[in-house]
């Protein structure tokens, strides 16, 4: 019995020492080396691809954000229609322990996790579809899917080219700009698939609105 205990203790000691040695290699040296090279070679990207306009940081080009003008009486944000609007983001924060709608909160990434048969999701999709159609003066059948659904991260920086084009007319009017100019901006900002086939075509909303700010200057 004593022997068995002693053997087990010795074996556990070996396991622990193996873990500590490998922690030094995989948990200290490896991340430090990668961070060192990354910071030297890809400094901006390694630190979050932040972009500046007129000398001010306006966000990370990889993370979506909201473009609102204040909040209504119920505390819901009111979209500022002078700017292009991102996708809905109705994911609930912190693994659903709170039920606050934390849209585009950088520290609360996540999806709604609502299933295709969820009545809340069905109602939300229909309501958003109506809002997009009414706001931008298009038939509901032309509203693209990404305009009425929440993304996986809740921080999707992109909208589909179709959703951007759909917003162009209203955005032009709100800014007293020539519609063709805004449509050209959308075209110029649209990114195709990587190498022509990886991923989907998309328009970065932050870049779009930065371009818009240049146009209205």
């Amino acid at each position, binding site marked *: 019995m004593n022997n068995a205990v002693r053997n087990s203790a010795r074996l556990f000691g070996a396991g622990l020492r193996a873990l500590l040695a490998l922690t030094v290699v995989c948990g200290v040296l490896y991340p430090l080396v990668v961070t060192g090279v990354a*910071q030297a070679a890809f400094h901006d990207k390694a630190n979050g691809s932040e972009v500046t306009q007129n000398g001010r*940081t306006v966000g990370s080009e990889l993370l979506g954000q909201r473009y609102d003008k204040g909040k209504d009486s119920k505390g819901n944000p009111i979209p500022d229609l002078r700017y292009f609007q991102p996708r809905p983001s109705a994911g609930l924060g912190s693994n659903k322990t709170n039920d606050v709608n934390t849209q585009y909160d950088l520290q609360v990434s996540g999806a709604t*996790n609502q299933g295709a048969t969820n009545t809340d999701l069905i109602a939300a999709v229909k309501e958003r579809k109506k809002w997009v159609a009414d706001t931008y003066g298009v038939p509901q059948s032309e509203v693209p899917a990404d305009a009425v659904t929440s*993304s996986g991260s809740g921080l999707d920086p992109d909208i589909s080219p179709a959703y951007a084009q759909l917003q162009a007319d209203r955005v032009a009017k709100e800014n007293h700009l020539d519609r063709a100019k805004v449509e050209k901006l959308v075209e110029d900002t649209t990114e195709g698939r990587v190498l022509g086939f990886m*991923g989907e075509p998309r328009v970065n909303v932050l870049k779009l609105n930065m371009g818009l700010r240049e146009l209205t200057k």
Partner: protein
Amino acid sequence: MSPILAGVLQLIALVAALALAYRPLGDHMAATYSSRKHLRVEKIIYRCIGANPDTEMRWPAYLRGILAFSLAGVLFLYLLQRLQGSLPLSFGFASISPDQAFNTAASFVANTNWQSYSGEQAMGHVVQTAGLAVQNFVSAATGMAVAIALVRGFSRTRTGDLGNFWADLVRGTVRVLIPIAVIGALVLVACGAIQNFSGIHEVGQFMGGTQQTNGGAVASQEVIKELGTNGGGYFNANSAHPFENPNGFTNLFEIFLILVIPFALTRTFGRLVGNVRQGYAVLATMGVIWLGFTALMMWTEFAHGGPALQAAGAAMEGKENRFGIGGSSIFSVATTLTSTGAVDSFHDSFTAFGGGIQLLGMMLGEIAPGGVGSGLYGMLVMAVIAVFIAGLMVGRTPEYLGKKIGTREIKLAACYILITPTLVLGFTAASMVLPDALGSILNTKALGAGPHGFSEVLYAFTSGANNNGSAFGGLNANTPWYNTTIGLAMLLGRFLPMVFVLALAGSLAGQKPVPETAGTLRTEKPLFAGLLVGTILIITGLTYFPALALGPIAEGLS
């Protein structure tokens, strides 16, 4: 170009990239595990451990090594989380509560990476890089070690020796995982994944004001989370988060990382048993199932059945614009047919049949191509069962790779395939009669809440017991019942099968080789690969069909 065509082209590019890596990586792993030389860094580690890497171990000793190492891993990770409040570089995050710390420790050591915490709000630099990411390496290396031990069981004769666990563990980490991880991490950073040690800081916003955001060693953890088929995200949104997976290329690259070692291990297997064509037969079996599942997933996701998705016009709920339906479908099949569980899109919001495909992928035992190591040993156990069934049909004593599959071997294989279904179906059934467990189903307002809610519970236990780690997030699993039962399912689902695999390996290694005769089933031929695919689908189908019928099938047909 239509999204469907783009999806198909992405799949073709993926196959091409995997094919290019197959031989060099498979041969490199074969050389690694049969090498007689030790690198200097390895010698230092062996000295720390106090183990002689050239000592041969029989299966009980090999198993004891794994269990001791894993127990140390659980305790160390548990303590690291419990002490987080006093550790530097922790964003000021508090220590993790005891039950969640245990759940997370068990989850990462078991290569599952089920997460009941939200990364960006709970875990600081030290726990993420020195705790969680380390287990991403070593739990994967442990899986590979077990697979190699089983392969040695086939290739060695008249001995009980299976190699040395410490040597296999250290070599897998140092010679296979780390070199790929370093290159992969830099590729991800070059595309936009972050890699820094900054704390919580303010970032300016377009409309004025600032928002808080946190930095992190994300790329270095992202790459090993995919490569080691672990899946635990740095952020709550996992690989859907733009800092983990910035564009369409990185998405495909991460899928490649998930699949590359599990597929290449079939080459390693072929090399070590002295006939690469045996490896090709296993590869063909894995490939057929993987491609079939991916095609089905693309079909159902592009068809976007289900009222909410029909109303939206496409299955974009829970999916990112930069990946689209095609990229998300390929990722979700790769992650559930391996033991990864990383997600670039959220599985609960897939179509009913899409969710069913994810479930079935895990239920197959994650063997096509499966987790790093666990996929190969799971598949070889199924191969043992397939030759046994073939032997019954022709009335011959079954043999595989020159080893007799006798009573002892088939008993061990049968025990292996019974463990996960027992855990999954037992815990799911228990949850269905417990009011507290049912209360966790958050998608209660679903039309016919029954099937989808049942799918969510079934998914949780399937994911836990198969060491996947992905979830139908509409289930609130952070309750005492689910934390405890899923924690148990993860540990039992990881280590009990290893016991039977190593016992099987020991039993095979001790045998005399059986000479090949005209009556021997040619296990390197397409006929055998077909038999193996059939065996896998029939055994899993018979086990899980009733549960699938109550969940995704009922929902999809309603």
